[in-house]
């Protein structure tokens, strides 16, 4: 039998003739595996593909695009509804989108996609290249972050780093005495825009060499809330957000058939124009000169990492090995602000002009997967991860608490680091074709380096078992259960005492913890009915058995059920249901000794939804989706100060209907209606006006609540072929 013959392959193309033969043999192997009940090998006769001219293949050539234009109307303003959607204001919106492709027979292709150009959540993406030679992409993504639209402030200069009180401001010891407050309030929404730009490229440099580069810039512009205190009084402020993060990832990779090596760089630079926030004190200054305060906002910083990786496939026992190593350095050296801006307080010179912050990161990883037997699959990995904080430590001798009160004791800034090692192993054995069992384990060591913490090192042990049963394509289930123990290597009571902690306390992230957990995932479909279900359940029970003061327990239970129903060829429906319940208990001591109170927190969250998509006629299709999400959070205090807090509630009802009608072969009418109602009750927020709390000047934000209707109508016009069809 003649083997495949083909025209000479161009030198610059990646595929060599041998790859096709490799494909042929692998297909033969696939045929072997798929042949029912046969244990003997079968060999595929290699076809002469030179005769396969594909005359019927409707390869995409030329240009096609879809342009959508129209308008939408939102009947209520809401920051919560507009968060990430850009639909935060009531009124009209322009809806404009387009997508298209230009494809040349030489293989050059450009795709573009413009989405929601009339909204603050607009996107642009252009991709293209010559497949197999290079790819490129440019993108722009605007993500509006709308936080509050029910807030009001007395401060001027919002959006800048200087917040000032009006000239006629009357300060007082509590908000009740601020007689100019009401007249000074100005509505001010809080939120920012995140604009994301990027470019990416992938280049095949000949043979097996691949170069990947990915650049992205995030710019944020707007405001966020920030609290600023003077002693025991505080103000809700609006701080500026004006920063950018540049990221670059570049990788060179050599890919052979059975191995690869790769070297790369990953860098990130954060730059802010809002390095500080200064604000006037609206309360009567507790000490002379305490009329204003200043805090440092997040400083410029950068991180650069070099990494290498290699891997081998097809090793003995059908094994794969991958190793990687990385070393990185982060730095931060922004000039310090002064200890205080209170002109009445004298301070020592700062021990340094900046932190000279430096963090070194080192990482090694080895992963091995193996299939030594047809029915046995094993995985193992060893990972080492280190963060060394090499920042300058110095003694700060003139710390001033909230620009009012000099702190008498000198403080040395802490530097925290860690070394972590993780060993992981698992094995899965197919007892039968339908049934497999698995075992796995994990061992972790964490050493906390740098400034001493209460737990210097801890060890985590985790073991689990798993059963997977899939007798046919209609049913499959995976059940997994395990136990995990986090065991600290002693709790240093001397460090705890030096930190002023109650020595009965065991910090939640360091305390001894025993966790039992289980998980089930199942899917099933009726053989003769177009109905399928997916089910998942998860349970985890954390016990902090050695804790007297601190978190005692945490239980997380969640389950979810999805149903999909292909009613007929033209109608599909689905329904979903989910619930998660998290209960936790925390003990405390108001007498700095043994516990005398306990807080029980219960979070319950339920969701359900349903939808249907129907092609009602050749021209008309509808898509209707409904979602409901209900959350309740209860806190009960027992012991000292006992009582039940009001329930924190959230309720979301969302209904969306989309209709598409083909006006002609090239034009569709699209109609959309969204109804969304959201209610919430939050005792920490509800009913708190700017002057409700005597010691906090608030912004008066209300718990989120909205009832919004969105109606939109667009026309979609199709240029070029709407569908591919076989040649005449």
């Amino acid at each position, binding site marked *: 039998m003649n083997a495949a013959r083909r025209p000479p392959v161009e030198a610059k193309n990646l595929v060599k003739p041998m790859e096709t033969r490799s494909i042929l043999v692998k297909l033969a192997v696939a045929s072997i595996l798929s042949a029912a009940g046969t244990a003997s090998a079968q060999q595929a006769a290699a076809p002469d593909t030179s005769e396969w001219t594909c005359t019927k293949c409707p390869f995409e050539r030329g240009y096609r695009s879809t342009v959508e234009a129209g308008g939408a109307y939102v009947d209520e303003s809401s920051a919560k509804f507009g968060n990430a959607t850009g639909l935060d204001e009531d009124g009209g919106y322009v809806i404009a989108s387009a997508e298209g492709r230009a494809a040349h027979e030489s293989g050059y292709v450009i795709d573009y996609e413009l989405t929601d150009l009339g909204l603050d959540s607009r996107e642009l993406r252009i991709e293209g290249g010559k497949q197999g030679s290079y790819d490129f992409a440019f993108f722009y993504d605007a993500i509006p972050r709308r936080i509050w639209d029910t807030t009001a402030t007395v401060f001027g200069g919002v959006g800048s780093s200087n917040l000032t009180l009006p000239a006629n401001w009357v300060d007082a010891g509590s908000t009740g005495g601020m007689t100019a407050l009401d007249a000074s309030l100005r509505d001010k929404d809080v939120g920012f825009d995140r604009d994301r730009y990027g470019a990416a490229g992938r280049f095949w440099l000949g043979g097996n060499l691949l170069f990947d580069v990915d650049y992205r810039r995030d710019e944020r512009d707007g405001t966020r809330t920030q609290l600023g205190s003077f002693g025991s009084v505080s103000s809700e402020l609006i701080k500026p957000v004006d920063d950018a993060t540049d*990221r670059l990832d570049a990788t060179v990779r050599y890919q052979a058939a059975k191995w690869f090596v790769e070297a790369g760089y990953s860098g990130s630079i954060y730059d802010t124009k809002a390095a500080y926030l200064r604000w006037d004190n609206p309360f009567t200054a507790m000490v002379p000169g305490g009329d204003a305060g200043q805090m440092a906002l997040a400083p410029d910083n950068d991180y650069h990492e070099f990494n290498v990786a290699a891997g081998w496939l097809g090793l003995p026992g059908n094994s794969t090995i*991958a190793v990687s190593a990385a070393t990185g350095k982060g730095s931060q050296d922004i000039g310090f602000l002064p200890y*205080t801006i209170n002109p009445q307080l004298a301070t020592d010179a700062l021990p340094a002009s900046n932190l000279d912050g430096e963090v070194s990161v080192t990482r090694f990883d080895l992963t091995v997967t193996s299939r030594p037997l047809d029915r046995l699959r094993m995985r193992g990995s060893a990972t080492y991860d280190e963060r060394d904080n090499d920042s300058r430590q110095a003694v700060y001798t003139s710390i001033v608490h909230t620009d009012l009160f000099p702190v008498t004791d000198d403080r040395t*800034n802490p530097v925290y680091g860690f070394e972590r*090692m993780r060993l992981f192993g698992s094995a899965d054995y197919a007892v039968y074709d339908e049934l497999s069992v698995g075992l796995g384990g994990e061992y972790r*060591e964490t050493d906390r380096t740098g400034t001493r913490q209460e737990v210097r090192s801890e060890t985590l042990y985790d073991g689990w078992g798993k059963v997977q049963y899939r007798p046919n394509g209609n049913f499959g289930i995976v059940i997994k259960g395990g136990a995990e123990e986090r065991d600290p290597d002693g709790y240093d009571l001397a460090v705890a005492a030096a930190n002023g902690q109650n020595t009965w306390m065991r910090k939640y992230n360091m305390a001894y913890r025993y966790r039992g957990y289980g998980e089930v995932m199942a899917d099933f479909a009726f053989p003769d009915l177009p109905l399928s279900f997916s089910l998942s359940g998860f349970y985890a029970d954390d016990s902090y058995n050695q804790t007297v003061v601190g978190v005692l327990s945490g239980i997380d239970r969640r389950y979810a059920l*999805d149903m999909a129903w292909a009613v007929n060829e033209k109608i599909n429906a689905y329904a979903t249901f989910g619930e998660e319940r998290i209960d936790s208990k925390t003990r405390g001591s108001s007498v700095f000794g043994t516990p005398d109170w306990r807080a029980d927190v219960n979070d319950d969250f339920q969701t359900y939804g349903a939808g249907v998509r129907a092609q009602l006629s050749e021209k008309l299709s509808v898509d209707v989706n409904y979602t409901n999400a209900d959350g309740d959070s209860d806190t009960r205090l027992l012991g000292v100060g006992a009582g039940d807090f009001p329930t924190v509630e959230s309720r979301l009802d969302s209904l969306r209907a989309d209709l598409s009608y083909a006006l002609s072969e090239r034009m569709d009418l699209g109609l959309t209606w969204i109804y969304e109602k959201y209610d919430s009750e939050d005792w920490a927020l509800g009913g708190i006006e700017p002057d409700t709390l005597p010691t906090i000047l608030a912004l008066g934000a209300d718990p989120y609540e909205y009832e919004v209707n969105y109606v939109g109508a667009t026309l979609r016009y199709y240029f070029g072929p709407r569908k591919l069809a076989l040649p005449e």
Partner: protein
Amino acid sequence: MSHSKTLSRGLLALAMLLPLALLAQEPVAPAAPEATEPEAAAAAPGPAAPAAGPAVTFSKKGADTCLGCHDDEVTLAVFHTKHGQPADARSPFGQGQLQCEACHGPAGDHTKRVKKGETRPPVIRFGRDSEAPVAVQNGMCLTCHEKSMAASWHSGPHDAAQVSCASCHDSHARKDAVLAKRTQADVCYTCHVAERSQFLKPFAHPVRQGQLACSDCHTPHGTTAESQLIKATLNQTCYECHAEKRGPFLWEHAPVAEDCSSCHSPHGASNPGMLKARGPVLCQSCHSQQGHPSIAYGPSGLPGAGGPAVSSLALGNCMNCHSQVHGSNHPSGATLTR
């Protein structure tokens, strides 16, 4: 350093040396030798020669045969995709390639005349309701894609759970839903049903609004990082978008640099800031200093109840004063108030 640590680090070092040991050996020749002559390919030894059984054959004309029956919109959609690009010699429709049979396997028997009463032999189909085992389906994809994914797929949990490529990917769609930000999550929710609910919580990343995809944080094709994160650690993944939290800061808050998930639930939470719990209880799970940090803050401290504790309960609770909870770079910020 304790003995257990010495032992564990020694094991790690030995494990690191393993690849070098393996490299010292000649790798076992693959079952399919890469012949350079066409005749050698025909004679290439595959698995052991059969004693019996018919040879599997390919179609007579490739796609022109298949398209004779399969000319529906779904089938033709492959020509919108990279798989249907004839100018790329690597793609199934590249020059001399096997076209439909590159993925669906030899279709010679499938395309022959079928006797009355007999069932037409199938080709490999992809997806949940395929008769072909996941290993076969994925084997077809990995024939071409294994090089680019190298070892990562095999080290990931999706491979271990025998998830088929077609569970997520649709090669016969003009737009593969899992590759688009606004539709990706719905594909993931097919199996990760609980996450659909979590992203509906009051405070969550904007996945529901289509502004973030699962792959912005996770690498579904496999990685050695925990939870299949795009970066080696959770914190480094978070810093991709939240670089202002990276520091280092003059006054660090110890758990922040160690693990963001000590306090936050990135898939969604009932508390602002995606916090697992709200203050003061959250803060009191680690802080117990004498005085206000350890007081029992009960409902008598709520606004309107007149209790003195209202400033530690309402609004930002502990953060009403300790607002620089991620760390402070201010010389007087030792208590995270500046």
